[in-house]
């Protein structure tokens, strides 16, 4: 039960304002989700052959600089670690799978919450305004981003239960709704090797997407099969390296509004989030259809 937002800039001149625009939208959704918030921003790609990890530490004693030093030693390449609150970004020239495996064995208290070349994920418990402030969202530039405010109804209020959920390289998902077959689906995906950190239904949706994408489906195809394989109600916003997508369940249970101008495409649970954007009054505004998938990609 939540509020979700997403913005995709068509006009790159707005890139320096991305964080500010996303923050404005996110804060409008605070009533829908006062318990925790999170967002993913796609910005500043690392060089080819490198990978960028968004990390979150479950303990307060983690020595981020030490992780950077250890990673350099393990992989024999320079690493860059940028520390933000309980999160850090780790970038270095290594293969994503090998780096993830190394981190999981060397630092079990550190979770990878986003991985890819552009994606940066930040999420925390607390009011969305305080979460945005902790990570200086307004100051982040970028090409597109998605965000989530969470009202926990079943599972616990923790960072791990917060959205966005990573679903593969540069892919993450935010979800408004609830799924009823997530336990069954989690077991089936676990048998296929997917690993889970929580009992949260939305994490299962993210893992489902990752699994389908891994099987060779396009994002659009994966979201279409999600409509039949996921039992429940949902509006999803999904971020990828070069675009974002919105999908709704077959009977459009949860609210969703899309809007588009020459400069941007935006999605939100409620129109008031879109109303914060520049030139919103002149935007083409419509309700996404039930069971439909909408995608935007950078040409």
């Amino acid at each position, binding site marked *: *039960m*939540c*509020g979700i937002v997403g913005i995709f800039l068509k006009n790159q001149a707005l890139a320096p304002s991305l964080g500010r625009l996303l923050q404005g939208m996110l804060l409008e959704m605070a*009533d*829908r*989700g006062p318990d925790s918030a999170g967002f993913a921003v796609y910005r500043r790609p690392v060089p080819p052959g490198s990978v960028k990890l968004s990390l979150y530490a479950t303990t307060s004693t983690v020595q981020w600089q030490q992780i950077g030093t250890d990673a350099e030693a393990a992989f024999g390449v320079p690493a860059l670690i940028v520390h933000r609150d309980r999160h850090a970004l780790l970038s270095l020239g290594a293969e994503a799978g090998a780096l993830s495996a190394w981190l999981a064995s060397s630092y079990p208290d550190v979770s990878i919450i986003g991985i890819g070349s552009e994606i940066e994920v930040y999420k925390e418990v607390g009011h969305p305004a305080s979460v945005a402030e902790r990570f200086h969202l307004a100051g982040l530039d970028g090409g597109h981003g998605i965000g989530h405010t969470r*009202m*926990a*109804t*079943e599972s616990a209020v923790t960072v791990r239960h917060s959205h966005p959920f990573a679903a593969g390289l540069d892919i993450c998902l935010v979800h*408004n*709704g*609830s799924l009823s077959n997530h336990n069954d689906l989690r077991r089936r995906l676990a048998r296929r090797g997917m690993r889970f950190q929580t009992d949260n239904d939305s994490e299962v949706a993210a893992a489902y997407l990752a699994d389908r994408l891994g099987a060779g489906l396009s994002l659009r195809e994966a979201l279409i099969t999600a409509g039949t394989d996921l039992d429940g*109600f949902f509006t999803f916003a999904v971020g990828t390296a070069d675009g974002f997508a919105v999908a709704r369940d077959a009977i*459009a*249970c*949860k*609210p969703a*509004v899309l809007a588009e101008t020459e400069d941007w495409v935006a999605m939100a*649970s*409620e*129109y*008031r989030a*879109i*109303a*914060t954007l520049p030139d*919103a*009054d002149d935007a083409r*505004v*419509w*309700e996404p*259809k*039930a069971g439909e998938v909408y995608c935007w990609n950078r040409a």
Partner: protein
Amino acid sequence: MVAIDLAVTPVREANQRIRALAAEGHDIDILNPDARHHIGVGLVTPTSVRIHGSAGYFCAGLSDGARFEVDNNVGWAVGDNMHRGSVVVGGNASAIAGVAIRGAEIVIRGNMGSRAGQVMKAGTLCCAGNASFLAGYMMYGGRIIILGDSGERVGEDMTGGTIYVAGRIVSLGADARETDLPAQERLEILEFLDRYGISFHGSLSRIENAGTKLRYGTPEPRSRPQPYDRGDEGGAATGYWNRRVREDIAIKAQIGRYRIRGYGASKPMPDFGDIDFARDVEKGLAHPDPLAAVSLETTVGSRSGAKPLGLSMPVMIAPMSYGALSRSMKIALAVASRLSGVAENTGEGGMLDRQREEADQLIYQCLSGRLGWNVHNMQRADAIEFYASQGAKPGLGGQLMAKKVTPDLAAMRGIPQGIDLRSPSRHPDVLGADDLVIKIEEFREATAYRLPIGLKMGAGRVQHDIKIAYKDGFDYVALDGVQGGTGAASTEVLENVGIPTLAAIQEAMDGLKEIDAGNDMDIVLMGGIKDGVDVVKALALGARACAMGTSLLIAAGCIACMQCHVGACPVGIATQDPDHEQRLEVRTAAEKIHRYLETVRWQIAALTLGLGHTDVRQLGRSDLVALTPEAAALTGLPYVPKRAATAA
């Protein structure tokens, strides 16, 4: 014109000023609306409100008589339940535009979102652009004019009213059909469009209800309820394939569908009889005047700072509709509530004037179909209850069979008469805890934050649901177990869906404890509460008060034939047939209910005293033990079977 700037004025304060300015005869300009929710909610004075920008959810909702203009877009549920007056939206409208309107005119110059006009009763919803899917979903009356394309499944499960489409009919909904357009109706539409300055010369298709789903087919034969007793006959036919099972199969073989009856679950399940008091209570029972020695006064619903219900004892009357029950019975309950100083509840279907006059305190229920729901009755209620579900049929809407849907009752509810009424199973504007927050705020705006807002909830997955209720800010939760009664429901649901009242209260307490909620959100427990003994046990388990329904009907003369749905109640309680209703004398019935409530009062006082307390608030879990392993497992109370032996 007076301007209110929402950049500096919160909506709550703005709405207060709008009401005050309208009362002084001013027109109002709203500046910088920035898609704020609830603009103009609860306005019942004719005036003009111009919104310079976009409005959010529930713009002009629960209002009567004002004219609204919105320059740009609106969010969900513009004009929710609006009676008279109009809203003109310059841009697009989000989902459920014109939901549940009762006469208003809503004009959208752009496109409109899904489920437009859901459960509308009267008035006009006009969209100059395209509609999205399910326009006219479950509408009961009025007209929808769509000058663009209809969207998918237009008119799905509409009961009454008419939909006109100028563009393409993308697809017709279930039980909707296209018909010819009478010339007179076309003239009326052109007149309407002209009034709002919409130029139109094209042709129109007309859509109405096809009438295939309004009534059940084969009627169900009358039958007496069979006991849950496997040893009822002796011989080879006993046990598994007993008379009850065989009768059920035989009737379904005849009617080809589920069966319907009144009352709640009848199969044996753990109940308050399976727990007992931990100590002997003779001292209280022998006391010459327990009422003087024990404090019983109880308030319910003060959490948000609203004026709580003030009860002379921790008891209220359970929600039962005018519809399921006769007018005479509803008035008798209202009179009894006054005589005994407890609260009465409208249930579904609206508020009767006489009921309002007689009831000392009256709770007004909002159900999914918004039948008999309006801002004026909200504003004269003492509490508002948002019905999510009930114990007898969690997850389903109400049922009222055709014989009970009289012209008077249909007019009050805003529906066609003589249909087998099946209320929607979910609310048009609440599809989750997040939407519910915004709905509750609309109720608070419409009642100036004066009234407690409660949630009526059937017991299903209580431990989760109670946390949602807490988070959403309800002042109290009315929690209803499977033993709770109903006027009509399918037997499958009655016997097999809900969970026992005893389990429900325990789950609620466990859920609230998990989130450290304390005890500021009151729980009113109901579902088969028979007497003061049950009330004391419920209070000891954590309830703030109990609501009694079936027991009070029995006090008034109900013989428990369980045929409430048929409409031919032999004692005039559950009927709309005047010949049957006259068998119930209001004054006599009210006095019987009152006398029974007074014995309940005495029981509560005597037992509380017997347990060593002088205030019902002192009752606690240490006052109880479980007599059966099942009850112990459900409640976590100590299993002390020897109390049963002592009691016997």
